[in-house]
């Protein structure tokens, strides 16, 4: 019989947890869960080699291990530091860590455009959550922010480099999921950018769409869903289909309004990581309910803005006029669709190419 593996005892914020050797501090903290989990913007458990870059997950190691109890001299990136037996870690109990994290959030935001009102990621953006929880409300940065031209990397993906925080997740994704990586980091320092250099299309591999899901901000967005709707107006629904691609898990979330599917994404867990990668066919091409087997509404944390307006057990408002007026129907003085030039019921917003314009609502299509 195989010998039982010895587990390492780690104390994070005075909570003891036993984990297997080789686990990182971050994953040990995720085993505990709750507030002691450091935030992570670049680490992605499903991507090999990711992490260590954003520095939001810095923690203080107050005791190295049972054998060598010296504390580590600097704050360490918890996503890339493995635990030792008897290690003691301070995360939210260390003012030093909180201060450093505040600094990192400030650094990440000084060149971020803060265009959340027009950004498709708003509502499900890791950077929004991070700055809300760990940042300060004001900015001390008084200079011009760096900007880049928007770039289409293929038919389905829009690269908005200005918003990028250079987490390198998309580079790892393309490297590890697709046959050939064709985009990467150009230049260096605060001029570095994600690019294909030649503005090449990335569509020819069937898994490149996953870069949209791994992007923690709105730098990579789905061109089939851009500007179509805000995430909090949509209802996330778990669904699956028999996908012919063996690498695709086929389990997705459909973002619906009524019977329209606006967007298809992979299923993300509470740390914003996908449960399984999906292929581009599922993501970009299957936008009708009949393509999918719907499982039911997706559970969303009640703290998320996505749950706004999605009440459980709601009663639809009933038309009461007829009831109190002895069965007489109210006289309709005007149907709004006869005069309004937009939002016609027969035009499906999710079917329009790109954001809706007035040209999408031709006069003759309205109710006569």
């Amino acid at each position: 019989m195989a010998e039982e593996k010895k587990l390492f005892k780690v104390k994070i914020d005075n909570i003891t947890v036993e984990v297997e050797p080789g686990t990182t501090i971050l994953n040990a903290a995720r085993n505990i869960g709750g507030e002691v989990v450091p935030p992570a913007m670049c680490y992605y458990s499903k991507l090999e080699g990711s992490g260590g870059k954003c520095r939001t997950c810095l923690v203080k190691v107050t005791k190295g291990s049972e054998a060598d109890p010296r504390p580590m001299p600097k704050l360490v990136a918890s996503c890339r530091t493995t635990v030792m037996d008897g290690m003691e870690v301070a995360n939210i109990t260390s003012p030093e860590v909180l201060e450093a994290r505040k600094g990192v959030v400030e650094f990440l935001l000084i060149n971020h455009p803060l265009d959340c009102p027009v950004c498709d990621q708003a509502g499900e953006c890791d950077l929004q959550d991070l700055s809300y929880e760990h940042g300060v409300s004001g900015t001390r940065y008084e200079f011009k922010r760096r900007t880049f031209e928007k770039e289409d990397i293929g038919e389905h993906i829009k690269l908005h480099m200005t918003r990028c925080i250079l987490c390198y997740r998309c580079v790892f994704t393309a490297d590890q999921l697709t046959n050939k990586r064709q985009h990467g980091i150009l230049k260096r320092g605060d001029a570095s950018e994600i690019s294909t250099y030649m503005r090449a299309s990335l569509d020819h591999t069937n898994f490149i769409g996953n870069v949209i899901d791994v992007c923690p901000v709105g730098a990579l967005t789905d061109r089939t869903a851009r500007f179509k709707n805000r995430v909090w107006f949509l209802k996330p629904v778990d669904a699956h289909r028999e996908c012919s691609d063996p690498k695709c898990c086929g389990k997705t979330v459909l973002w619906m309004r009524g019977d329209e599917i606006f967007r298809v994404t992979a299923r993300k867990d509470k740390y914003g990581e996908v449960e399984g990668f999906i292929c581009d066919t599922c993501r970009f091409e299957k936008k009708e309910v009949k393509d999918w087997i719907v499982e039911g509404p997706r559970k969303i944390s009640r703290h998320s803005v996505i749950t706004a307006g999605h009440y459980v057990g709601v009663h639809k408002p009933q038309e009461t006029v007829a009831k109190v007026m002895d069965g007489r129907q109210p006289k309709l003085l005007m149907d709004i669709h006869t005069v309004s030039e937009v939002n016609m019921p027969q035009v499906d917003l999710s079917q329009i190419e790109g954001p809706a314009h007035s040209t999408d609502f031709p006069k003759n299509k309205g109710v006569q």
Partner: protein
Amino acid sequence: MGRKLLLDKAHIEGIRYYDVYRKNGGYAAAEKALKSMSPDQVTEEVKKSGMRGRGGAGFPTGLKWSFLAKPEGVPRYLVCNADESEPGTFKDRYLMEFLPHLLIEGLLISSFALGANTTYIYIRGEYAWIPDILEEAIAEAHKNGWLGKNIQGSGFDLNIYVQRGAGAYICGEETALIESLEGKRGTPRIKPPFPAVKGLYQCPTVVNNVETLAAIVPIINIGGDEYAKIGIGKSAGTKLISACGNLNKPGVYEIEMNISVEEFIYSDEYCGGIPNGKRLKACIPGGSSVPIVPANLLLTTAKGEKRMMTYESLNDGGFATGTMMGSGGFIVLDEDQCVVRHTLSLARFYHHESCGQCSPCREGTGWMEKVLKNIEHGKGKMSDIDLLWDIQRKIEGNTICPLGDAAAWPVAAAIRHFRDEFEWHVLHPEEAQRRNFGLAHYADPLPVAAAV
């Protein structure tokens, strides 16, 4: 005259070539090591010498070598870090230009000690002419049986390759250097694993500075014990100092680490004082990333002792009143120099050279440069000084590699010691465009602590 071990033969004409070098006692150490010593004995000798890495961090070389993992069947590599890009440092360039065979001999002995059969010299791209010198010397060494298969009948094989960088300061950081050598983007790796375990091509690797590897030759020649006697305490041996700035005789000097800073600046044997009768205002004694200190703290420590050119004495008082030996890039500023402008040019350098991998350094270095530019050009605010302090504090120690620290320290030290000059710039924006703050009180004797 101080004892010279590295540059003692630098003046001989033609020492760059094998014949002259060999005639003047060259390759004697290699002969001794290969024929009469085992690899472990060489390492032991280096350990005994107490030599500390000359690249900047000052980590004992023998100790570093002993950390090298030695798994069976896996090649080990020695990499010579010649990516000397620190502003103010140009000692390695001198060594490689004039004494290439000294470096090759050092590499040969070190590779023998570490069991490395392939050794790389990673040289910065801006040293465009030096790879030719090195390659010529390597070809000569091959011809004379000091490189290649079965060197001098010892059974030891070694090949040395020269690889040019493409002009990045960050590639002087050992893991970024290894990445660049592998042909990738030169960004530091996240440690652990350390290069001693997984370095070049995922094999155990030692990365050492040019001067460190060259100094192996005199250590083997005179013996580790003898080498350790030179200098004071843990600062053993001789050190190359590249002096520049407002000096009568700037240049590369080899010093025994037992002279004082004052002697180094003012004596005729070394820098010969400051030109035009100007007074000393400030100095960066170890290359641009170490803290700048004002004249009074440079010449004496906070305790009132004479400051010596040693690792310990320069570091005396920590960062509050001391500085570091660093890589030996000795930059001297006289009373006409503006510390704000000087700090700005350093901040610009680090902004330009940040690799952009981790956020504090990528964003913070650019921010510091912009704030400093405002102060320098008369657009600063009083709160900017505190802002700068806060930015540097949040960069320092929170980055992947030491470049973040190196960017933060000069700014921190400038504000710590020269805050009134910064304030003067803010309060007199127009006057600050016309004239410099001058020497002010920076050379005044330090207040003597009252005896308790």
